[in-house]
């Protein structure tokens, strides 16, 4: 076999493998979307109908009209957005301090942060529930916002430090010598350079907060306070769930983080891998 044929074959195989994997990655979402736009009589058939003659958005109409989903969606958006904004700001300050100021015990502090980052939300939810009950903050969206700020605090800080470390201090020094004060330097010089990093931190928090289920399920018990994951959770505990409606609910639950991912993909990948790649 000539080298050219060999190359062509390997190229084709590679393309095939990439295509197969793409199909594997996309098929489940595609299928739940198709299910969500089918009329019920086309869903419960076997062999399966891969497409429907009469696609309809009836399930979505039911979801937002009758099932109160617009309420859950607003709740989720409100909680996620505020918690993510606040944790991004907190991380901005603490990351700046960790990156720019040498002080005693910094190494131990970093190790401490790495270990606390590994404690998952659901292990903390019971004591948090106890604490927040006595503060009358359960079944309250602000309570959930506070919990979510805590959820992302450590990881956001570590990520912010990493991003700050990549920005040379020389510009800040020049501004300091020119008589700008430290807070001014942070906001006028450093933050504009850090915008991609901040986008990554915000996106991370957004994704985590939007998807969090168990703490919200424990804390929120009235229908008007539910977030989207809790609403999906309550859907499946009810008997006789229609898969087109649940499918529509799933699509609605997935779309916001998908949008965030497609816009911030570059920054998210940078944030994920900054510890993994040596410079």
């Amino acid at each position: 076999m000539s080298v050219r044929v060999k190359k062509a074959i390997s190229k084709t195989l590679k393309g095939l493998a990439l295509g197969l994997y793409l199909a594997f990655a996309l098929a489940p979402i595609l299928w739940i979307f198709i299910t969500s736009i089918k009329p019920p009589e086309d869903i419960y058939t076997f062999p399966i109908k891969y497409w429907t003659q009469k696609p309809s958005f009836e399930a979505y109409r039911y979801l937002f009209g009758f099932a109160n989903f617009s309420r859950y969606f607003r709740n989720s958006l409100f909680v996620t957005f505020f918690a993510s904004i606040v944790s991004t700001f907190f991380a901005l300050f603490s990351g700046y301090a960790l990156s720019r100021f040498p002080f005693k015990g910094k190494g131990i502090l970093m190790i401490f942060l790495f270990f606390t980052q590994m404690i998952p939300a659901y292990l903390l939810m019971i004591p948090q529930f106890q604490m927040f009950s006595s503060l009358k903050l359960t079944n309250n969206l602000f309570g959930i916002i506070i919990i979510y700020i805590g959820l992302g605090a450590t990881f956001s800080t570590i990520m912010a430090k990493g991003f700050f470390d990549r920005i040379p201090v020389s510009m800040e020094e020049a501004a300091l010598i020119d008589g700008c004060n430290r807070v001014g330097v942070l906001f006028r010089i450093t933050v504009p350079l850090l915008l991609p990093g901040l986008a990554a931190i915000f996106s991370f928090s957004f994704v985590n907060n939007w998807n969090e289920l168990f703490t919200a399920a424990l804390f929120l018990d009235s229908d008007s306070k539910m977030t989207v994951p809790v609403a999906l959770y309550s859907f499946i505990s009810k008997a006789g769930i229609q898969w087109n409606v649940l499918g529509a609910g799933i699509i609605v639950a997935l779309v916001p983080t998908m949008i965030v991912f497609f816009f911030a993909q570059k920054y998210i990948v940078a944030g994920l891998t900054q510890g993994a790649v040596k410079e």
Partner: protein
Amino acid sequence: MPASKNEKGAKAPFSSSLETRPFRSFKKKSRRFFFLLALFIPTFSVIGFLTIYPTVRGFILSFQNYTVFNIRRIRFIGLQNYEKVINSGDFGLILWNTFLWIFFSVLFQMLLGLGLALLMRKPFKGRGIYTGFVFYPWALSGFAIGLIWRWLFDGSFGIINDILIRLGFIETGIGFFSDPTLAMLAVIIVNIWYGIPFFAIMILAALQGIPKDVYESAWMDGANPINSFFKVTLPYIRPVLVNTILLRVIWVMNFPDIIYAMTRGGPAKATEILSVYMINIVFYENNNFSKASAVGVIIISLLMVFTTFYYLISNTKKMEM
């Protein structure tokens, strides 16, 4: 250890300029102290109040008798919760399930993630868009993913059964969620699907850090592609693999979302892993918060033991190399 590694990796390029005068010398030492304190207060009060304090409190709770039906008369009952958990008869099964879940999920996430990263290594037309479409599961809710696959694996109207019948592998639909082995297989497949992007992202980044001339010299020495993979690629991405595997094991152990959506630990506890067990206690078993906390303490202890051994083993190997 990710801690020391990250610090080193990040610090190196600017370490000289980091320690320069303006950031070291405030006019007054006290001013520098208060400036730092102000920067740290928001984050560390949140961590203290919402992570450290609850962790300590959860530990204490695991030795008490706190349930939703017993709020007033809380007292210490020693190790009774732990005894209840360990002597329940299912504890061995739950540990075994946890092991299977972690081992097969992480193993195949890594292998397939590595494969994907190798395929995506060289630039091709539309790679940017392709990246977006294969990495997006990273951002999705595990619970929603579990629900989707519950529908795909459905015994009566599931598309997977339909495909298997059309291909002639089976004659009638399989009840994936009524058979213990198949149920475990199903939840692990979903977790693999979900976790491939994370490995691929990390490995791809590591691959792009390998200098080209290393391969050239390997070619000169007559290495074929397989040779150069084992002699060049693998040693270069090894640290990333080691760290990513650890991160993933911890994360997968603490990831009840998919199982919760698909089987809630059933049938007959066949897919019940430790984290699912704990959440089932919280939501169903009379809200026995103390018993659930004991399970939580067991989870953290197991992870600590595992992390220690993992580092000991992976470090000795490094020395041999």
